[in-house]
């Protein structure tokens, strides 16, 4: 696999952290900028602000999918999906803690959550490596990355559904009606599905990343549907952007499939093999 040029893990990590945080903070900054500008600009900016959080979530999903790929390649003995579950389990704990503990300092929330998630991931990774002795060299690093990505996914999509990442408004807009469960579960699927769906000896990173964008866009679309209830027009905007991104990357994924598959047949008998 080494002969094919791959995007390096560090690049994707930077993409996930910076893109994720940027998107999340834009949900906060855009309405402020709108208030300053006033007039029609204000309405426009408040409508598109939540979608930025979801875009940040997609960046985090792509990063997480790559981290899942690196660790799951070693064979975990229990299937790929479990790693997505633990990612979101750690992510949601850290996200809830980070956002609530900062109290009035709302802006610090996502950073605290990211750091908390990294610490939880580090501890679980350390235990997996040194107490449980799983003998996977990338375990500690990947567990940390996956947990951190999980917390950004939770915060990003929650912010997209609630319009802000202040814990008090998340409680009423996301927890009470159960949207957080959707973010939790669809986010986990979006992160684990790309590697799980591309599993095999001829798995390629490019195809996987396109699929990660597409599953992330599905999460964004569902968050948009939920946002119609909580935010009105902003939810419709998130939904539309999500569908457009999904269309683009679903198409790109299929292009890669046509290129990579042994043969794509309309129909036909099973080809003869040597055996």
């Amino acid at each position: 696999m080494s002969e094919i040029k791959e995007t390096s893990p560090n690049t994707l990590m930077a993409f996930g952290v910076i893109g994720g945080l940027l998107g999340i903070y834009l949900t906060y900054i855009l309405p402020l900028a709108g208030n300053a500008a006033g007039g029609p600009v204000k309405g426009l900016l408040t409508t598109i602000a939540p979608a930025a959080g979801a875009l940040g979530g997609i960046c985090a999903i792509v990063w997480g999918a790559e981290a899942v790929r690196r660790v799951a390649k070693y064979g975990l003995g229990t299937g790929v999906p479990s790693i997505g579950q633990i990612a979101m389990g750690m992510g949601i704990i850290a996200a809830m803690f980070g956002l609530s503990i900062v109290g009035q300092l709302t802006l610090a929330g996502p950073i605290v959550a990211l750091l908390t998630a990294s610490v939880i991931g580090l501890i679980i990774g350390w235990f997996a490596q040194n107490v449980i002795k799983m003998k996977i060299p990338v375990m500690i690093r990947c567990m940390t990355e996956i947990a951190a990505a999980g917390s950004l996914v939770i915060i990003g999509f929650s912010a997209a559904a609630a319009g802000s990442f202040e814990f008090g408004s998340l409680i009423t807009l996301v927890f009470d009606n159960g949207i957080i469960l959707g973010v939790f579960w669809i986010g986990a699927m979006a992160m684990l599905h790309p590697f799980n769906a591309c599993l095999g000896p001829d798995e390629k990173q490019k195809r996987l990343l396109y699929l990660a964008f597409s599953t992330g866009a599905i999460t964004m679309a569902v968050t948009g549907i939920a946002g119609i209830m909580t935010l009105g027009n902003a939810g419709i905007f998130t939904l539309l952007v999500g569908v457009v991104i999904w269309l683009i990357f679903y198409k790109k994924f299929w292009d890669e499939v046509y290129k990579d598959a042994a043969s794509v047949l309309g129909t036909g008998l099973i080809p003869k093999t040597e055996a």
Partner: protein
Amino acid sequence: MVVLDPTTLINVLLIAISGTLVCIAVHFIPVGGAPAAMAQATGIGTGTVELAAGSGLVGLITASAMYAIPSVQADPNAMALVLAAGAMGSMIMLASTMLAGSLVYAYGVGVPFASAQVKKDPITGARQDLYMSKGTQGQGLPTVCFVSGIIGAALGGIGGALIYFVLVKIYATSALIGGSAAAVAGVFTMGVFYVNAVVPSYGVGGTIEGFHDPKFSRVIPKYALTSFVVSALCGILAILIGGGLI
């Protein structure tokens, strides 16, 4: 901020214990993973995490329904009743699943039940090795596996219910969460539950037959330790969520 008083410490300890219970429960449930789905290994033909989660979360449904009753909330001994409700829901789910699974092994696949790890069933004393077909690691669910699974489900149900019970009480008095205590505690319980169900599944590595499996005593101590530390950390975070806002 939270003052470090005995109640807080006990709550953290309870969450750590419940996480450990979930971890131990996973080892009790007889799962055979993909080989069992082909009747090539003893146990239920699915993965560790999801079966533990499936039964534990049904327990969470029954436990939270129990706790929602006003008379139960007023009862000072509510804890035992809520935990028992969790264990009951979880056991019923796993018992129905294993019974139906046995029906498929018996009449859909046509294999007698046999454990590969013991020569005689420790509970019924029935011979196992003769019924094991060639090239497999046993098949179906002999009585010892069934009973082990029930114990595991009970522990998982108690573990999930205990996290929920501790958190919902803390959050109900929190200024910010207040009326949404059930929703927030439920989500947090699910997070802790999954972390504690996935970690031990790496040691189980796909198949375990239950408490009579040599793997059981070999892997449990280090996983219980891991779960205890991780859950205690989660417990501290959980309590800070409720208390940090006052």
